């Protein structure tokens, strides 16, 4: 039997199912089964929250470092937080634009690639937003207290804090890399971000193979 022999089979199956499932399709149904949008909703709300938080931080620290222009360390602390806030806004807005401009009528490979990259970006964005806090806690304390902790604290303490921050960043990156590896992960992890990223990565590999031919 040849593959072409199945062409008629497709028509028969469809005719049978149309007959047995007289489905009334309601175009206006605001669907409880809008799975495409529903699956993207956590991503969307997460990034809306990120943009909102970024705006709040930027508005709070902007005046601070401007007012403390004469105190170099306090100004630097304020600017560091301001730059971080702007990055948060930019990363969050980028994802929101990608989500908003998603057009399901685009070719299949292009859309599925974009959806998989959006899923994968969840971990990248989480790292970009979370990692800096291994170091940013100090500027935050300075901004909140208005005290130049850099000049007042002992040098050894500052160096130790910086060292811990760098080790923390490296450790977090390594742990994240292990989580998305194929052989790692507890039962709890399988339901979490790591699993989502692994699945997204697998889909991207599948798409790449399909595109290659």
């Amino acid at each position, binding site marked *: *039997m*040849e*593959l072409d*022999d*199945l*062409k*008629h*089979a*497709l028509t*028969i*199956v*469809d*005719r*049978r*199912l*149309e*007959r*047995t*499932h007289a*489905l009334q*399709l*309601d*175009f*206006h*149904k*605001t*669907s409880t*089964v*809008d*799975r*495409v949008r529903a*699956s993207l909703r956590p991503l969307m709300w997460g990034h809306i929250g990120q943009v909102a938080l970024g705006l709040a931080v930027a508005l709070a620290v902007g005046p601070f470092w401007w007012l403390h222009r004469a105190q170099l360390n306090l100004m630097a602390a304020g600017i560091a937080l301001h730059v971080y806030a702007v990055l948060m806004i930019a990363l969050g807005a980028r994802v929101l634009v990608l989500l908003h401009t998603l*057009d*399901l*009528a*685009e*070719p*299949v*490979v*292009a*859309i*599925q690639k974009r*959806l998989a990259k959006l899923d994968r970006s969840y971990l990248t964005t989480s790292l970009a937003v979370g990692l800096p806090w291994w170091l940013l806690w100090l500027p935050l304390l300075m901004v909140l207290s208005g005290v130049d902790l850099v000049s007042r604290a002992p040098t050894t303490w500052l160096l130790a804090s910086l060292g811990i921050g760098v080790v923390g960043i490296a450790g977090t990156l390594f742990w994240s890399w292990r989580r998305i590896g194929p052989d790692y992960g507890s039962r709890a992890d399988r339901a979490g971000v790591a*699993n989502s990223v692994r*699945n997204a990565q697998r*889909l991207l590999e*599948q*798409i790449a193979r*399909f*595109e*290659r*031919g």
Partner: protein
Amino acid sequence: MASTKSSDRDERFSALFERHRGIVFKVANTYCRNSADRDDLAQEIATQSWRAFDKFDSSRAFSTWMYRIALNVAISFARSRRLRERYTVTLDEDYDVADASDGGDEADDRARLLHQFIEELDQFDRALLLLYLDEHSYHDIAGVLGITETNVATKIGRLKERFAKRFSAT
């Protein structure tokens, strides 16, 4: 004025959708095995198509446009379902509804073979197979999937070989 425009839009969409309604069922049947999932998916395809209709370029073929939406929705649907269900649903009894006018036993056998083969394919090869069996040109298939015509031809050749090897005794 706005409500007249809106009802014109609904009428145009309904007319086009009804003419190509078969696409919804073909895609839903290809990606779902039980009737509840098929109905779910068919409804979502209809809703997403209606929502996207404002961007439809009427100088282009509606069937191609609708196939893209249907397949994108179906593949996303299948992904989210696969993450929840870690088992394969065996042949659904719905497929065994026979009718003398459908060609009888031979037709049943071919329908089973079709679904057996589909089950073995990944989401993208399923889309390719469906478009091929629905007698779309390589050019149209390439346009829907977003790959080159050469790639389409190569993949169809491989599917034919795979099918022949798999079901050679049939």
